[in-house]
């Protein structure tokens, strides 16, 4: 039988390697808020002829929009992000660009949010995250009510959950400054969905460990935990893989609108599989026995 518990310090190390730079990035750069949270006007413009990025930038600067962020979005397509402008200014801007660049422009999508709405979105998002956390904590304390030390199991589950969330948020922070990835309401949606999925993986693993504890598989908690984790391996990997298949397909083929949602789900679910198998149960063992690795691996009882 594979010894997943014995290698726990390696797993903790791997997580630290991912999480520490992520936390640094979060602390230094934070997340890059999209118009949902920071207000502003974002547009995708389609030009009917070849337009250089520099040309468009120059034109926008000439029109007084020197704070505009311009990114190429595809063939003859650009994404523009401005501080919030009114409907009249939008129409005027389009007209001026058409004259200036001598082309016809189709606005294939536009999203404009005023500061009052953005402030409300930030506030509601915080409330939603708090409410979801309380809901999940209540659920966890209920789900672990039959465990021998419910508080201990619940705490380990919450730490593993936090681990997943930090990885997702950290990756978005890194992508924010490295690739201009913005977070929007759909990113929050993805993160909250990850909370739901991630806890459920941990519950399934803990459920197995508890079952083995009851059956008295071994006197050594480390062995019991390892059994539980290895027995959950098939289920966790297979369900996770099946879910990842559809999510990867959505990410690659599904279009840009849902990218932040799907990417958050993809990272969160992949991390969730890892943390449920390599972190959550191992944390229980650490709490029971301390950080030191076991000297001899008990595989003979298999």
């Amino acid at each position, binding site marked *: 039988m594979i010894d997943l518990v014995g290698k726990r310090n390696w797993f903790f190390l791997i997580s630290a390697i991912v999480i520490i730079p992520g936390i640094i990035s979060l602390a230094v750069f934070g997340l890059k808020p999209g118009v949902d949270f920071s207000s502003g006007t974002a547009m995708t413009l389609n030009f009917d002829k070849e337009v250089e990025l520099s040309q468009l930038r120059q034109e926008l600067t000439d029109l007084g929009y020197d704070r505009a962020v311009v990114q190429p979005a595809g063939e003859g397509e650009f994404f523009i992000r401005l501080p919030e402008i*009114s*409907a009249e200014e939008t*129409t005027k801007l389009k007209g001026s660009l058409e004259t200036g660049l001598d082309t016809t422009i*189709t606005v*294939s*999508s*536009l*999203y*404009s*949010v*005023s500061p*009052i*709405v953005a*402030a*409300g979105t930030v506030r*509601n*998002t915080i*409330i*939603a995250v708090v*409410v*979801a956390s309380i*809901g*999940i904590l209540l*659920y966890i304390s209920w*789900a672990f009510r039959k465990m021998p030390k419910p508080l201990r199991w619940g705490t380990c589950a919450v730490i593993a959950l936090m681990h997943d969330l930090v990885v997702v948020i950290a990756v978005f922070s890194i992508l924010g400054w490295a690739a201009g990835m913005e977070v929007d*309401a*759909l990113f*929050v*949606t993805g993160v*909250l*969905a990850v*909370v*739901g*999925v991630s*806890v*459920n993986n941990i*519950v*399934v693993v803990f*459920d197995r460990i508890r079952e083995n504890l009851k059956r008295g598989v071994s006197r050594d908690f480390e062995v019991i935990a390892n059994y539980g984790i290895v027995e959950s391996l098939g*289920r966790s990997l*297979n*369900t996770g*893989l*099946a*879910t*990842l*298949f*559809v*999510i*990867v*397909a*959505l990410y*690659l*083929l*599904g*279009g840009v*609108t*849902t990218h932040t*949602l*799907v990417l958050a789900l993809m990272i969160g679910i992949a991390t969730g599989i890892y943390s449920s198998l390599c972190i959550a149960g191992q944390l229980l063992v650490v709490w029971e026995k301390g950080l030191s690795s076991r000297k001899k691996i008990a595989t003979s009882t298999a």
Partner: protein
Amino acid sequence: MRRGNTPLLIFILVLFGFCLWVIWPGNGIFGRNEFTLGLDLKGGSHLVYSIDLSKKDPAQSDADVIDGVKQKIERRVNAYGVTEPIVQTIRNERGSFVLVQLPGVKDIDQALKLIGQTAELDFRELMIDSSGKAVLDENGKEQWTIAKAKGSDGQERELAGKYLKPNAQVNLTQQTNEPEVAFEWNSEGAVLFEQVTQRNLQKPLGIFLDNQLISAPTVQAVIKEKGVITGLNLDEARTLAIQLNSGSLDVPLALVERRDIGATLGEDSLKKSLMAGIIGSAMVVLFMIAYYRFSGLMACLALVVFVVLNLAIFKLIPVVLTLPGIAGFIVSIGMGVDGNVLVAERLKEELRRGRTLGAAIEEGFRQSWSAIFDANVTVFIACAVLYWLGNTFGNFLVIGFATTLFIGTALSMFTQVVVTRTFLRTVVGLGMAKSPGAYGVAKQ
């Protein structure tokens, strides 16, 4: 075969057949013959206006003003000819808002003018000083003052758009082919208009919309009931006619959120998502069959039932399908195998322990149910919070995801357990697929 399994199988098959019929294009019950697509898939405009209640008449209650705004916008939007518009009010701690969705609208600029303008129409006279000359402001422009006259009850009233009958229409003048808006006064308006035209014979009468002069025709005769407004282009004339008929808004609106999605973008996104869904599901099917063999195949049949039932629910409720909504549905297909995986794993274990196939199936399901149920509770919690979050700021994309993920998860609990178990019992009862190898258990 267990008692009760055959009726259950028949029930599932009938339900499946019915749902398959429902999701076929053009079919449906209660008039729900097509899927309801959200704005991001149809293309169109999503607008949120804040209602400035500080400008309201103190005699009116907040609720009345908000309701009035909503009704008038509904009338405007309906008259504009948008199919299936949505007009909703949102009240929260930040103020009062009205949300307007205009699917498939082409000329958004025109629509923005139509909805957002207060559309307060009034008639004004030139201000004349004691010497009979027009009063000019510092820029040398004539000054206008709102025309007042005695109403039928002797009270002085301003001549304004609220005395118009809601039957204004756009005509083209015969001579010049220019558009004009023909209007008719109600009885009170006629009383006022008669006095005003009488007083201003051979003088200009200014017609103002939201304090902007749109035309100043010279009064040629005393008129009571009818009149025309010129000086507009065709689009403006149409917009004005709709606004006059719908009534002016009691308070000004400010556009605080706007989301436009081009029709081609929506169509393109829909195709891409469907393709992603089909390829993703195909991979799940291949994987399940390769790994779990026969119980994997059964799980896939259950998955087909799940997809068909789910789509039928979407059509019949109807659920507004958005891109994140479709993503939520597709994710629920992936997660929907979870129960089947749990059961199939248990089944393998029970078979390895040497149980008979029938006993292993019953034991597998019995053992797995609590895990399946508990595992989905967390997803429900997340969906409920997301649904609330989406509603508080009218974000239809977030609501779409929460709704489909919730429905998908709830329904998959049914198909994972009831449908798969019924299928497995049926095959076992028929004496098919007896070898443990068919369930992915290696021969000892």
